[in-house]
C-alpha cells in the first residue's frame, strides 16, 4: 500500500487531486483523458473489418466435419403433465442419428420439492418448453422426425394473463413455494417469501441501509400528513430480447472432453453449467465464443438447447448444432417481465419529496423475481421515506431472464411519470423538481448539459405548443426522465499481458464480445500503458482456456476487465525492466511515463522505449498477470454516490391526434460511465440503449392468445422492433467521471442508457396531448382511446 495523488471527480467540473491509498503492484493513476495518447479517444474497433466482411464467425457459422443439425421438440401446450416420451419411431426416421429426452429443465423458477427430486421434470409450465430433441443430417430431417416423438401429455388448464392468474380459482402454475437462481445482472428470487395461489410476495424493499418495516411506517405517516400526493397505476408489457442472432450452441466430444461453440454472454457460466449438468469435470469442458450476435441479458447459461446439443452429440458421436429459430427464441429463452405498479409520491409545497411508496407485481411467466423497485429505491435516495413491495404473478408462459437493466425501464416508467405529474401539480419545472431531490453530482451536471443541448426552455405546459399540420392535428411535446444503474464489478476477472521481443504485445482475457466491442478498450489500455501503437496489441478473448473473466452482464465487463488488463501490462513492464536492466547496465530501470523505461546507466539518465527494451530481451517474451483489485480506498466516499451511475434523457415527440401515431423526433442523452475509454463505442452503446427504449415505449409487446396460451407474434414482423425510420436525431453529452478507484476508472454504459428512455417519451407525449398514458406500449390505439376519454390531466387539451 502506498498513498498517491489521484484525480477524482467530474472533469471540467469538480475534479480535484486527492490523496488515495493504492494497493501494491498497480500503475500510477491516469489523469484526465486529454492527457492520454490512446485511452479516451474515439477509436474504431480493432475487429470491425471481420464484422463488415462476413469473416466474423458466429455460432451458427461454425462448421465441423460431420456436423449434425439438432431440433427441439417444445411443448405444444402451456400446461401439461408428461407421463412418458417415446422416441423409438423418431429414431428410425431417415437421416436421424440421435434422439434424446431432456433430463431436467434449466431456467425459470423451481419448486423446492422438484429441486430435491432432481431429474426429469414431468410438468410443462409454458408453451415451447423443451422436452426432447433430434439430431439428423439435415435440418429438415430433424424437423420431420420431431413429429414422430410421442409424448404422453395430460393437458391441464392454463392461465397466461396476469389479471386472470390473480383470480381465486385460476389454474396454479406452481403447487408450492419456489425460488429461482439469478444470472449476472438480474433475475433471481430467493426462497422464504410467502406464496399464495399464483401470487408470491411481497418482497419488501427500502433504500440500502434502511429498515423496510420502519420505512413502511414512515411512508404511511407521510401519506397522512396532508402534503401534496400524486398517485398512479402504471402497466408495462412483456418485451422479448430478440437478439438478432438466436440462442445456439454447437457441441463436439473428443473422448470425454467436450468443446462447445456458444452464442453467449458468459463463456465461463456456460462451461460451469454444462459441467454440472453433465456431471463431468469443469476442466473437460471448453467453451469458445469468437463473436456473439447480441444477448441483452438472456444469454448466460448453457440453456436447455445447449444441454440437448451436448447430449445429442454424445449419443450420435458427432458434432451437433442446435440453434433456435425465431419462434423458439420468443417463447423459451427469456423476456422482460410485465408489471403493474401503484406508485404514490408525497411532497411538500417546496417540491421536496417526503415519501415514495411503490407496490405492485411483476409477471415473468414461470419465473420469479420480476421486480421493478430499483429506481424508486435509488434515484431519489435522499427522500426520507421510501418503501416498496414487489410481488410475482406466475403465468403459464416462458420464464423471464435478465434484460438490459432488469426492472429499471419498468420502474422508471412509473416513477418518472409520477415525478412529472408532481411537478405539474406543484407548478415546478420537471427538471427543477429533480434538482431539488437528486443531489447525484453526475445527474446534476447531466441535467444541465442536456437541457442546454436540447433547448429545454422551449417547453411549455402540456398541450400548449402550437398545433401543427393542415388540420391542426399534430401536437408537439417535450419531456424528460432520468435513471440510475449500479456500479457492479466482478473481482474474479483476470488478464495476462505478454510483451514479445519484437515490441508487440498480446492481452489474454476470458471475456466475450457481445457487441460492446470489448477487444478494443482492452487493446487501448494495454497500448496506453505500454506506449505502443494500438495495432501492436493482439487481443485474445472468447475461450475458457484463457484467464477467467467476467460474464458480460450488469454492465460489468469494462469496469471489471480493463483494470486487470492495464495492471497486467504494468506487471509485464516491471518484468521487462528486471530482464533488461542488467543488459543495459541500469540497476534502477523502472517504468516511466509514456510506456518508457527510465533509469540511470553509468551515471547518465537513460530512457528506452518499449520496443527498444524488448529488442534486448534474451527470451521470447515477458509477461504479467493481474486480477481485478478491489476498489481503492473504498471507505472514502466524499459524499458521492460511488455505487451509482446516472443518466438523463430529454425527448421531443409529435403526436398525430387523428391517427394516434407517435413519432420521437429527438433525444438528448447525458450519461456518465466513469472514464469513457472509447467515446465512439460508448456512443454506440448509448444509441443502442435509447433505440431499444423507444422500441419498448412504442412498439414491442409479446401478444398471447388467452384461450390457447399461444404467442401470436413470434416473428420479427408482428413483434415490432424499431427500424431506421423510427429513430430520432440523437445527441449525446458524455461526462468524464473519474472515481480514482481502479487503474482505468471505467464503468459500464450498456444498461443505464436504456433506463429513462420510455419514461422520457411518455412524459413528452403527455406534454404534447395533455393526457397521460400509463400503459406501455404507447400504441395508436391507446393514444386514440385516451384522446377520446374525458381529460384526466389538469392541463388544457
Amino acid at each position, binding site marked *: 500500500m502506498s498513498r498517491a495523488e489521484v484525480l477524482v471527480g467530474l472533469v471540467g467540473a469538480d475534479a480535484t487531486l486527492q490523496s488515495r491509498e493504492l494497493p501494491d503492484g498497480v500503475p500510477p493513476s491516469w489523469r484526465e483523458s486529454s492527457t492520454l495518447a490512446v485511452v479516451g479517444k474515439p477509436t474504431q474497433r480493432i475487429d470491425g473489418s471481420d464484422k463488415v466482411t462476413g469473416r466474423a464467425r458466429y455460432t451458427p457459422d461454425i462448421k465441423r466435419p460431420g456436423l449434425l443439425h439438432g431440433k427441439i421438440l417444445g411443448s405444444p401446450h402451456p400446461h401439461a403433465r408428461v407421463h412418458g416420451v417415446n422416441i423409438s419411431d423418431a429414431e428410425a426416421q431417415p437421416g436421424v442419428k440421435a434422439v434424446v429426452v431432456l433430463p431436467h429443465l434449466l431456467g425459470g423458477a423451481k419448486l423446492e420439492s422438484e429441486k430435491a427430486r432432481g431429474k426429469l421434470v414431468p410438468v410443462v409450465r409454458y408453451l415451447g418448453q423443451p422436452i426432447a430433441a433430434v439430431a439428423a443430417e439435415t435440418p429438415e430431417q430433424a424437423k420431420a422426425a420431431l413429429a414422430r416423438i410421442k409424448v404422453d401429455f395430460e393437458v391441464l388448464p392454463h392461465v397466461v394473463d396476469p389479471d386472470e392468474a390473480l383470480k381465486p380459482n385460476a389454474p396454479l402454475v406452481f403447487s408450492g413455494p419456489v425460488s429461482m437462481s439469478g444470472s449476472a445482472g438480474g433475475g433471481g428470487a430467493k426462497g422464504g417469501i410467502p406464496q399464495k395461489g399464483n401470487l408470491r410476495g411481497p418482497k419488501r424493499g427500502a433504500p440500502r441501509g434502511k429498515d423496510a418495516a420502519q420505512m413502511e411506517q414512515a411512508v404511511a405517516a407521510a401519506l397522512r400528513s396532508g402534503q401534496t400526493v400524486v398517485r398512479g397505476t402504471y402497466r408495462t408489457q412483456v418485451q422479448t430480447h430478440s437478439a438478432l442472432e438466436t440462442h445456439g450452441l454447437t457441441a463436439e466430444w473428443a473422448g470425454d472432453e467436450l468443446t462447445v461453440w456458444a452464442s453467449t454472454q458468459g463463456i465461463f457460466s456456460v462451461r460451469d453449467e454444462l459441467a454440472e449438468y453433465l456431471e463431468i469435470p469443469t476442466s473437460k469442458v471448453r467453451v469458445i465464443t469468437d463473436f456473439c450476435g447480441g444477448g441483452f441479458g438472456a444469454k448466460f447459461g448453457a440453456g436447455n438447447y445447449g444441454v440437448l446439443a451436448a447430449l445429442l452429440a454424445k449419443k450420435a458421436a458427432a458434432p451437433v448444432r442446435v440453434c433456435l429459430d425465431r419462434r423458439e427464441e420468443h417463447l423459451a429463452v427469456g423476456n422482460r417481465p410485465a408489471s403493474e405498479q401503484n406508485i404514490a409520491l408525497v411532497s411538500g409545497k417546496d417540491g421536496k419529496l417526503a415519501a415514495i411508496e411503490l407496490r405492485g407485481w411483476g409477471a415473468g411467466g414461470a419465473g420469479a423475481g420480476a421486480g421493478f423497485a430499483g429506481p424508486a429505491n435509488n434515484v431519489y435516495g435522499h427522500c426520507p421515506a421510501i418503501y416498496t413491495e414487489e410481488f410475482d404473478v406466475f403465468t403459464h408462459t416462458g420464464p423471464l431472464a435478465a434484460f438490459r437493466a432488469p426492472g429499471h425501464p419498468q420502474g422508471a416508467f412509473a416513477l418518472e411519470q409520477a415525478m412529472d405529474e408532481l411537478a405539474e401539480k406543484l407548478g415546478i419545472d420537471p427538471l427543477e423538481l429533480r434538482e431539488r431531490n437528486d443531489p447525484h453530482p453526475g445527474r446534476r451536471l447531466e441535467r444541465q448539459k442536456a437541457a442546454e443541448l436540447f433547448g429545454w426552455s422551449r417547453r411549455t405546459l402540456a398541450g400548449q405548443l402550437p398545433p401543427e399540420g393542415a388540420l391542426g392535428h399534430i401536437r408537439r411535446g417535450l419531456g424528460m426522465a432520468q435513471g440510475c444503474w449500479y456500479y457492479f464489478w466482478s473481482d474474479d476477472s483476470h488478464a495476462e499481458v505478454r510483451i514479445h521481443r519484437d515490441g508487440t504485445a498480446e492481452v489474454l482475457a476470458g471475456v466475450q464480445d457481445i457487441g460492446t466491442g470489448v477487444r478494443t478498450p482492452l487493446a487501448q489500455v494495454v497500448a496506453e500503458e505500454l506506449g505502443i501503437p494500438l495495432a501492436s496489441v493482439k487481443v485474445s478473448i472468447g475461450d475458457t482456456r484463457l484467464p477467467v473473466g467476467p460474464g458480460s452482464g450488469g454492465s460489468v465487463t469494462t469496469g471489471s476487465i480493463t483494470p486487470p488488463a492495464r495492471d497486467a501490462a504494468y506487471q509485464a513492464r516491471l518484468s521487462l525492466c528486471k530482464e533488461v536492466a542488467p543488459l543495459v547496465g541500469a540497476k534502477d530501470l523502472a517504468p516511466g511515463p509514456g510506456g518508457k523505461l527510465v533509469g540511470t546507466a553509468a551515471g547518465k539518465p537513460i530512457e528506452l522505449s518499449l520496443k527498444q527494451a524488448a529488442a534486448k530481451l534474451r527470451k521470447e517474451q515477458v509477461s504479467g498477470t493481474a486480477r481485478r483489485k478491489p476498489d481503492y480506498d473504498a471507505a472514502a466516499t466524499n459524499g458521492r454516490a460511488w455505487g451509482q451511475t446516472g443518466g438523463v434523457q430529454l425527448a421531443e415527440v409529435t403526436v398525430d391526434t387523428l391517427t394516434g401515431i407517435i413519432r420521437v423526433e429527438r433525444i438528448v442523452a447525458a450519461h456518465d460511465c466513469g472514464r469513457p475509454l472509447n467515446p465512439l463505442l460508448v456512443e454506440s452503446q448509448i444509441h443502442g440503449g435509447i433505440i431499444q427504449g423507444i422500441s419498448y415505449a412504442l412498439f414491442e409487446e409479446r401478444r398471447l392468445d388467452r384461450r390457447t396460451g399461444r404467442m401470436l*407474434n413470434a416473428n420479427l414482423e408482428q413483434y415490432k422492433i424499431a427500424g431506421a425510420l423510427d429513430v430520432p436525431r440523437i445527441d449525446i453529452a458524455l461526462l468524464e467521471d473519474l472515481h480514482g478507484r481502479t487503474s482505468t476508472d471505467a464503468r459500464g454504459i450498456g444498461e443505464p442508457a436504456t433506463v429513462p428512455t420510455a419514461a422520457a417519451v411518455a412524459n413528452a407525449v403527455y406534454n404534447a396531448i395533455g393526457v397521460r398514458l400509463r400503459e406501455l406500449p404507447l400504441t395508436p390505439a391507446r393514444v386514440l382511446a385516451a384522446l377520446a376519454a374525458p381529460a384526466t390531466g389538469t392541463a388544457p387539451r
Partner: protein
Amino acid sequence: MNAFTWVEVTTAEQAVAQLSAARGGSALLKAGGIDVLDRLKEGLDAPERLIVLRRPTAGSKSTLSEISEIPASRLPDSITRLLPAGNAGDAPQPRDCLRIGALVTLAQIASHPTILRALPALAQAAHAIATPQIRAVATIAGNLLQRPRCWYFRSADFHCRKKGGDECFALDGENEYHAIFDNRTCAAVHPSGAAVALLVLDAIVEIQTASGTRQQRLSAFFVSASQQGGDVKRENRLEPGEVITHLYIPLPSPDERSLYLKSKQKQSFDWPLCEVAISVRRAPSGAGSLLQAARIVVGGVAPIPWRAKAAEAALLRLSKLDIESVRAIAQAASDGARPLAKNGYKVPLCQGVVAQAVMQILSNA
C-alpha cells in the same frame, strides 16, 4: 417446408395448364414467392408441385413483366367496355391505359415515371409495402392475391374458418388488427396495399383461364365471406387454376388526381393499421361543387379493400374546403363500422386517415 417438384413455366397459358393438370396432387403457383414461402415455411400449404411463373427471358415477346402505355386506339374492346363512363349513362369510351404485367415487381411500380406522374396513389402504395428487399422481388399480382395476414390464420396451430375449420379465433380473441366492417364471419383484413390504390384508379384485371382470357373490374374482384354466401376460404373471384396476366389502368385526365396514405405504428416496414387511397376529378369552375368524381377506398378495415361510399358522397357535395366539412366527410368514412372488442380505435383512425387524405388532395388540387 415439404419437398415439392419445381415446375417452371414462362407463360400464363403454361401456368394454367400446369395448375389444372395437377395430376391428382396439389399445385401452387409462385410468382415472387414472398407470400408463398411464408406459407410453405409455416406449413399452411404443402403442394406437391410448385408452379413457378418466371419472368420471361430477354427477347421474348411476353408482356408479363412489362409496364406499357396502350393508346386508346389499340385498347382491346374487352377492356374498353369495362372502363368507367365519363358521365353516368354514357357508353365507355376508349382511353389511354397503362398495362402492368402480372410479374412486374412492386419496386418497378414505385419507380416508374408514368406511374409516379399520372398514378401517384399506386406509386405511393407500392413504395409503402414491406421492405426494399421484398419490393424488389414481390410482384403486383402476388400482392393482390396474397392470403390475409390474420395471425391466427398465419399460424399452423389454429385451424380457423378460413382454413376450413369451424371457428374464428379472432372474433373473441386478439383482434386489435382486425376488421371493423363486414367482420362477423371472418375478421381478417385484406392485406394488399396495392389493391387499395388500384381500386380508386378503376383498374381492370385480365385473367387467363383454361379456355382463354377474361377481364373484370378490380372493384368487383375482391369478395368477403358475406358476399359469397359465407365462403371464407377465398378473398377474390379468381377461380382455381386461373392466372392473372395483366392489369389495365385508365390514365387520368388532367383534372384528375390521386394519392395514397398509410398509417402504420412503426415507420420502418409495418403493416397498415389503416390505409387509404383517394382519387378526385375537379368540377369545371362555376359548378356548385368542387368535384365531379371522387373515390375513397380504405384498407386495413375490412376483408376487402373498403369503398367508403358515404364519404365519397359527402365529398362530392363539398362546395368549399374548410376543416369542418373535412371532418364531416371523415365521419362518414366509418359509416356502418362495427368494431370488435379490441379494434374500436380503428373507427377514429379510419376517420383520421380519410380526413388527412381529403385535406391533402384538395389543398393540392
